């Protein structure tokens, strides 16, 4: 309490809200006194009701899950004891405030929240005002959402475990504004955090609530078709919007037009049909390949084509993510549904698509016989019949694939499928075909920066090239990286790599915010000394928010022949700042590691059974002295052995000059805090 931050020394007159916020941050548990005190403050400062409400909402959203309930009780107390204007201000964001909190807390807290919600439907106890605390139209949506969530939970208990748990990246939300609950996808947090694990187990619930029809399952191959279709739709919409941008730049580009038409039709097909999972998968893989593709901009655009933002107009679409990416959608004639494709052929198709550039791979050969048969038999029908079946699809694809083999072959649409053909004459098959046509070669040497900046026309350093507006530059900064972090505005590519990075980035935010919300950590910070010349020169610049700590540490250590023993570290379990090494019984203190952005025990390893944190050097000594690294008795085992080893260790220490454990320890502990407790050593 005494360590109040000094910022008040120069802040202006927004102190009240700030101080309210600070007091909120001190509220760690359901403390009646503190809550009524906060309520009193709110009551006496109704002229700042808006600021206070904002601060309160923000706090509920940002604070650690364990502190959400007390904060919500403050809200509850204010609306019941003070009423207007707080009810007005708070009711606006009540849904999101409540729901976001609800998704992040444990089940006990949820029950309390539900109980609280119930009281909001009733008049304030003891009041003569018969109206409920919040009007029904505010509370009802929350109740509905909770109901839905419970249903989903029930359903989920019956079905298998959430599938995306096996996926390499946390699920992404695409481009819609992301609620905070995304933080629940934290994967790199220390494994000791029980609360964290609990949240991970519950994470399917929040997602269902936040976006019942969402694209969260984009990563997982075989989930409920409904979700999958949605995700494909979203991606398609995204692609279309990109294409439209390009098309606006090059209206004379027939090729582009074909692609765009094909995509738009695909979108319609998706809207009206139910497709088989495998079929969906195939479309999906193609779409996602397309969306990774850099935007080719062959000619300078004649006109500005950046998609301008329009003030929001209510659109009849239900999916929020498509909304923002579909400035317009051309009405398309409904395409008759094609027959369902046979699963076998589709597999080979998929293989084909996956190896689009290498048709000589075994997959192709396996797939080839069936395809070849079909192609000869059906090629004519491609031209003739308006409605095509699955064989036609394969045939057309094969043909196209062969075409794509020719060097420098432009993906000209096959003669059977002229670009100007009326849309109704096309089906999924031809759509896929034309889509495939503009898949760029996926060269493995695509470095991230190249992909990010896109392949833009070279701009010479001359005064003449300064004046002309180049929308592609804007695109490379905005639409080219559609995957935006809702916290800091940072953007990521829509590729797998971008998604991975964003996942890490969100984890970083989560860790940071959690530590900031923890007043024991966020108070009493100080600035570090600046670095010295040589240190700066050797400092490898990396973004801690997108590089995992382990990667960074590995990179940093990569140059060295071997990791030194005292360089090993263990992330400090939350709340643990001190530890006694069970080998030498000396105290270990956690320190803050810049690179990892986390508290660690330096010169430490997990050792023994059950594993405990001990000095790395001590563990090393024990291993050496017992000569049986695998079966060293742990701490649960024979204490005598350990003590003997430690004694041995002591004797050794005095004799040997080289890997001296004491020295190692001292070194790790005494690194000047200002020169930062770097885990990599200076060469």
């Amino acid at each position, binding site marked *: 309490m005494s360590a109040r931050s000094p*910022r008040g020394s120069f802040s202006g007159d927004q102190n009240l809200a700030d101080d309210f916020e600070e007091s909120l941050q001190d509220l760690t548990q359901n403390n009646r006194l503190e809550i009524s005190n906060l309520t009193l403050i709110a009551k006496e400062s109704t002229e700042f009701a808006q600021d206070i409400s904002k601060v309160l909402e923000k706090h509920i959203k940002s604070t650690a899950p364990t502190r959400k309930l007390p904060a919500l009780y403050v809200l509850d107390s204010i609306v019941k004891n003070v009423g207007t204007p707080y009810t007005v201000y708070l009711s606006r964001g009540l849904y999101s405030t409540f729901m976001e909190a609800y998704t992040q807390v444990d089940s006990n807290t949820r029950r309390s929240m539900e109980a609280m919600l119930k009281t909001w439907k009733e008049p304030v106890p003891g009041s003569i005002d018969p109206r409920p605390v919040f009007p029904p139209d505010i509370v009802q949506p929350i109740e509905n959402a909770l109901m839905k969530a419970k249903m989903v939970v029930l359903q989920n208990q019956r079905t298998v475990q959430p599938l995306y748990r096996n996926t390499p990246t946390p699920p992404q939300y695409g481009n819609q504004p992301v609620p905070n609950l995304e933080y629940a996808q934290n994967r790199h947090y220390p494994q000791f955090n029980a609360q964290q694990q609990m949240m991970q187990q519950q994470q399917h619930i929040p997602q269902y609530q936040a976006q019942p029809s969402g694209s969260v399952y984009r990563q997982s191959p075989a989930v409920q078709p409904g979700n999958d279709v949605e995700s494909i739709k979203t991606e398609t919409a995204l692609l279309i919007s990109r294409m439209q941008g390009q098309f606006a730049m090059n209206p004379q580009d027939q090729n582009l037009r074909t692609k765009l038409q094909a995509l738009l039709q695909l979108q319609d097909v998706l809207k009206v049909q139910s497709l088989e999972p495998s079929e969906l998968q195939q479309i999906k893989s193609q779409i996602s390949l397309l969306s990774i593709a850099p935007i080719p901009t062959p000619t300078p655009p004649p006109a500005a084509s950046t998609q301008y933002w329009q003030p929001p107009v209510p659109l009849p679409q239900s999916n929020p993510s498509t909304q923002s990416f579909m400035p317009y959608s051309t009405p398309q004639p409904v395409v008759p549904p094609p027959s369902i494709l046979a699963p076998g052929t589709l597999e080979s198709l998929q293989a084909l698509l996956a190896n689009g550039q290498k048709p000589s791979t075994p997959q192709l050969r396996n797939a080839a016989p069936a395809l070849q048969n079909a192609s000869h038999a059906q090629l004519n029908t491609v031209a003739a019949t308006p409605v095509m079946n699955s064989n036609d699809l394969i045939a057309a694809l094969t043909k196209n694939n062969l075409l794509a083999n020719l060097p420098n072959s432009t993906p000209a649409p096959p003669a059977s499928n002229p670009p100007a053909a009326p849309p109704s004459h096309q089906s999924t098959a031809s759509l896929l075909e034309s889509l495939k046509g503009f898949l760029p070669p996926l060269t493995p040497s695509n470095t991230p920066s190249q992909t990010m900046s896109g392949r833009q026309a070279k701009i010479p350093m001359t005064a003449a090239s300064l004046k002309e507006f180049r929308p592609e530059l804007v695109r490379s900064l905005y639409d080219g990286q559609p995957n935006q972090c*809702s916290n800091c505005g940072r953007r990521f590519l829509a590729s797998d790599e971008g998604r991975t990075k964003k996942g890490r980035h969100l984890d970083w935010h989560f860790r940071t915010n959690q530590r900031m919300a923890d007043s024991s950590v966020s108070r009493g910070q*100080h600035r570090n000394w600046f670095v010295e010349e040589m240190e*700066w*020169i050797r400092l490898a610049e990396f973004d801690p928010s997108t590089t995992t700590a382990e990667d960074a540490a590995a990179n940093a250590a990569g140059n060295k022949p071997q990791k030194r023993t005292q360089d090993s570290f263990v992330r400090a379990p939350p709340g643990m700042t001190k530890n006694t090494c069970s080998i030498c019984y000396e105290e270990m203190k956690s320190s803050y590691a810049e690179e990892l952005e986390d508290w660690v025990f330096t010169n430490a390893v997990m050792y023994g059974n059950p594993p405990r944190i001990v000095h790395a050097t001590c563990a090393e000594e024990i291993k050496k002295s017992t000569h049986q690294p695998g079966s060293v008795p742990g701490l649960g085992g024979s204490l005598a052995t350990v003590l003997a080893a430690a004694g041995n260790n002591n004797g050794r220490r005095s004799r040997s000059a080289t890997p001296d454990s004491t020295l190692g320890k001292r070194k790790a502990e005494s690194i000047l805090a200002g020169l930062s407790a770097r885990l990599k050593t200076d060469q």
Partner: protein
Amino acid sequence: MALPGLSLPGLGLQLNTPTPLLGGQPSSAPQAIRQEDVPPQAEWRFEAGFGKPFTVKLLGGHAEFFGVELAPNQTYDFSGRKGAIFSWQGCRLEVSGDAESEYVGRETEYAIEWLNVHGMLESARDDSREGPRVLVVGPDHVGKSSLVRSLAGWGVKVGRTPTVVNLDPKEGLLAPPSSLTATTVGSQLDVENGYGISGISGPTVTPVKTPLVYHFPHASPLDKSDVYKALVTRMALSVTNKLEEDAQAKQSGIIIDTSGSLNDPRSNYDIINHIISEFSITLVLCLGSERLYNDLNRRFTTSKVGDESIPVLRISKPGGAVERDASFMKQMTQQQIRQYFFGTSKEPLNPHSHSIPYTDLNVLRAKSAASEPGPENPYGGGLDDDDEDDIPYANKPVKITGILYEKSPPGATLTGSLMAVKYCPGSSNEETVRDSTVMGFVYVAEVDDTRKKIRFLAPHPQRWGDRALVWGPWPEAIADLVV
């Protein structure tokens, strides 16, 4: 150690006020919250005073603040800033608070030029593993720093790690004024707070940046151009070395911000020439001054002497660039110094207080060109202490020749000044002191002449031993830093 600030005047006051919530001190009525629609390729310009809340929230569309994109629905505090939120696509903003002026500016041709410069840099980066080295020059208040930040911000956004060099001692970059810094920017910049924050002991809103800091305690490079040039040479050496270590940084190139006073035809742009040759500049961007552009263009583009010509481009000054008057600049200087010790509201820091006896101090004062080199002790007031002070210094091997720096006897005159703690010991020779990088800055909070002690405000709990403390005419003493 935990509460070193307790004994500081003013700070203690704050610490003792538990909850000034009921005081009701905010006098102004709650500011009207208003929504502003910014059409495509226009910008929302504002001049917000210090100490008055002024916040902006992006409700729809996209917007950026000098190269850094605003996240949707996040509230950004721009108090004490003069700037413009630009939108390529159009956007809707929610603005609250008072500003001295605010309006939608539509004359934004400059933005297209700036973006094209970014495109040029990207082309150059794609073409070669040796990235572009850009120098931005022009008079004061024409948007040089904004251009540099935009180029850095866009570069970072497309995955580059440009190295930003600030050669303007008036405005610090990730460090207080009087510092010249070099920073390789590998992570996102902060929307509100320039480039973000240098390393602190706790969590930060944006990933930390690591500047390399040199010290030039004069307001204008011309005040001591030989020292300035020596520092430029030294920085170029460090930066070049760093880029050799880091291929990605090398490809991303260097962007150099300069002081407006380099625009000095009388010296035949001596310092600009020096920077161009030391950093092997490949592109010069000239803002605001037509004469400067013509002079440089004549020299570097059409020169027949040098085998390689350096393109010099004339860049439009943003329509919103406004004169920042002396009092605004002074407040900004103070704010930068304050933020160095106390952090921002999002990243509050606790400075530490160190009381150090005179005898343990190595205080050097940087001489300015104006100050007469003659007298040993320019401070008459310090004469009384001469006997005591001479003893400690006499014990040390003094190699200072007295041309660049002079011993500064501790005394009341030091109060309120900002001193740089150099990495070198105080007994080093002048060149070493000059070229040595800065470990940190300390503020002289109080000089106790009876107990022969100085109380410093330092960013870090660790003391600095016998390292040299250097101060100079810039920045001027601040009386109320800890009030």
